[in-house]
Structures are given as C-alpha cells and as structure tokens.
C-alpha cells in the first residue's frame, strides 16, 4: 500500500524541524505544507483541534500531533531503518527524560527574544543552565545517542539553528559557554538529514526581527 505522508509545519519552527530530521533519517518521502498560523487552514484545525498548532504529521489520513510524539511514532512505524531510540529500556528512558527536558528551551528561548531587562536576564540564565546540563549529559560522546545519532540528538539539534538569534537578542555566546555542544551541533550538521532540515540561522534571525516587530517588542 502506498504511504501517504503529509507534514503541516512552519518553516522556522525548531519543533517542526525535529519531524523533518526524523523523516529524513528514515529516508521517507512526504508532502510539506507550510502553514500560516495567523490564518489557520481548515486542515490544521481538523487534524489538531485540541491545540491548533504545528507540527502535525498526517499518515494515511491519520493525524499525529506534538513533535516528540511524532518522532517516536516515526521511529516505531519505520523501525528497521536508522533507529532513533535505543533498544534497551533504561537507555530509552534516559533518552525520553532528556528529550522532554529540551522542551524547556522552547519557552525560555521565546522569553529571550520577547522580553527585555530583568525578565530577559532570568530567561537567559535559565536557558544557559539548560544548555550546560545538556552539555554535561553529552559528555565526550560523539552524539547523545552514543556512537549513533539518536532521539535526543533529534530533539535538541534543531535548536542550534536558533542559537544565532538567541545570542543576538540575549547578548551572549553559546560557544563561549558550551563549546562541546556547539561542536556536537556542527558534527550533526555533517549529516544530510540534519543539514537538509535545519534552516539558515540568518533567516531565523530575520524571522525573529519580524516577530518582534509584529508583537511590538522594541
């Protein structure tokens, strides 16, 4: 039976990029449909009535929502190519634990470019604490998954194309604080699945400038 895979996404979303990386890792063909979140499509509202957000994966007509849930779904359906989660239950638990932890970066990062003054400083502090903890978890491994690129790598790597934007508005350097993490992200970018899925940091920076204007942050 022919697989029909549609991804409802927003080009700049690091959460949507997680799904793109996972699909690429599995070598899957899919139809990408860019969404306008200011004017939500009937399809988006039908497929994700609860949250009305992207990303949404539609596989043979059935929707799956929430980026990490989608990545796990992809890993479970197409299990015989490039497995993302390890087979050992304890290692899987560690990967899931840390992947959930990376979600904190989303809100903290948002606060970084949305706010100013003390609020921004608090967000910056929280953001760097998270990254440092994650860098500790990486240790000296080439990937979070060990020798192989895995679930936690997918969860975190998409934030790396947002680093430049965070750094500009937050006035700090990720590389200065977490050099191993930056080295890891460069290593990941050598993979086609990652480099073809992540967006240009300069474009992301431009996106944030536009969002700040729209939301009246200046």
């Amino acid at each position, binding site marked *: 039976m022919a697989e029909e895979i549609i991804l409802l996404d927003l080009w700049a979303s690091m959460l949507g990029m997680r799904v793109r990386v996972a699909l690429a890792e599995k070598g899957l063909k899919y139809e990408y449909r860019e969404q306008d979140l200011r004017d939500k499509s009937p399809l988006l509202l039908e497929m994700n*009535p609860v949250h009305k957000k992207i990303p949404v994966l539609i596989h043979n007509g059935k929707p799956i929502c929430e980026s990490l*849930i989608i990545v*796990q779904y992809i890993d479970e*359906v197409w299990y015989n190519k490039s497995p993302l989660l390890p087979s050992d239950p304890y290692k*899987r638990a560690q990967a*899931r634990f840390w992947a959930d932890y990376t979600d904190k970066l989303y809100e903290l990062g948002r606060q970084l470019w949305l706010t100013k003054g003390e609020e921004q400083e608090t967000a910056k502090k929280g953001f760097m604490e998270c990254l440092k903890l994650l860098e500790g978890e990486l240790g000296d491994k080439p990937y979070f998954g060990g020798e192989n690129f895995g679930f936690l790598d997918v969860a975190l790597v998409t934030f790396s194309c947002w680093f430049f934007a965070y750094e500009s508005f937050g006035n700090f350097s990720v590389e200065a604080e977490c050099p191993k993490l930056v080295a890891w992200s460069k290593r990941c970018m050598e993979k086609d699945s990652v480099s073809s899925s992540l967006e240009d940091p300069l474009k992301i920076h431009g996106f944030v400038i536009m969002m700040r204007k729209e939301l009246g942050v200046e």
Partner: protein
Amino acid sequence: MGEEVKLFRTWSSSFALRIVWALKIKGIEYETVFEDLSNKSPLLLQYNPVHKKVPILVHNGKPIAESFVILEYIDETWKQAPLLLEDPYERAKARFWAKFGDDKVLTSVWNVFIKQGKEQEEALVAATENLKFLEEEMKGKKFFGGERIGYVDLALGFLANLISIFEEIIGLKIVDEEKFPSLYSWMQDFAEAPIIRDNWPPRDKMIVKFQALLDATIASSSSSSK
C-alpha cells in the same frame, strides 16, 4: 538475579500514584521510600539531580525520573498486563492525551481551585474547554484504554480523586454529571477498580492538605501590595 524495585514518592503525589497503580497492575513487588519534600533526602537528590522531585523509580540501583518516562519504562521492562497498545498510532494517541492531561487539564483544574474571582471564572472556562475534549475521547468506552485500564487512564486518573476534593473545598462543580456524562462515569469506574480503590491517599488528609494550601495562597495574595 533478584529484582530490586524502589519507588520514591510522597503520600499525596498524584504523579507518584500513577507508578503505584502501574506496579500493582503488573504485580511487581517493590519497596516504597516516602520523601518529605521540605527536607529532601540525599538519595533523592542523587537520583534526580535535575528536577529533585518525586516519583523516582529505582530498578536494580538505576534511577528513572518523570512519571510518564517511568510508566513507559515499566511497560517495556515487565510485559504482562500491557499499559500501551502495540499499534504505533494508538500509542501516539495515548501519549498525546497523557501530555494533554498534564499540560492543559491539570493546569486549568488547578487554577479553578487556587484562583479567586474573575481569574477563577476564566479558569473554569478553560477547564471546561479542556474537559470537553476528554469527554469526546471517552465516548463509547469504559476506560480510555478500552475494556481495561491503560496508560491514559493512569495518566488522567488523578482527576478521579483530586477533582471531587477540589469541588468539596471550593464548593464549585468542575465535572458536572450532566455536562460530562462519559467523563463522570469514567471517574466512578476508575475510582472503584480494585487496584485503584485500594491505593488512594486518605481523603481526609487530602482535604486538610489542600485546604491549607488554598488558605495560604489567599492569605499571601491579600497581604501582598498591589
């Protein structure tokens, strides 16, 4: 090699209850370690340095934290009485509803309980919206898992206990039987299932605890300057 399973929890944590239920459903022997969160043990801090919270499952000396992560670990390690179905789509749906329960339902229900005046009204609107989605998902089923209690039932199970406690304290109906017939009857069925029924924290203790929390919140908000 003998299995050594320890569960670090508090007497009242809804998140820890999920793990108690899962272990009992699967018939797994375990030892309980009660924690006082105002005075966290060195072991707790060692086993969960990131969040410093309960529940923590320690299996043969290896710690796992975060209740949903623990539930999946338990399901993958002990295959009897599976909590999640095999089909990836069903699993994705189960994970979705569990996350919705924590992110949206719990938050909005908590706000109905803890907020006052207009904020409470707004919280009730949000909670009702969220509960409507659960009502829809529940239709035609005895449990979220179907005929048997499953992952989503364990994830949302706290509602069956906490909601009636909140309703009693604040004198406000959150899950009205007429508005949410399927959800209401699920709450009864779930609470009465033998394993669940035998493992609720003592109701009178819960009322005292949450009343005290509410009193403290009201006291601190009225004494803070505007």
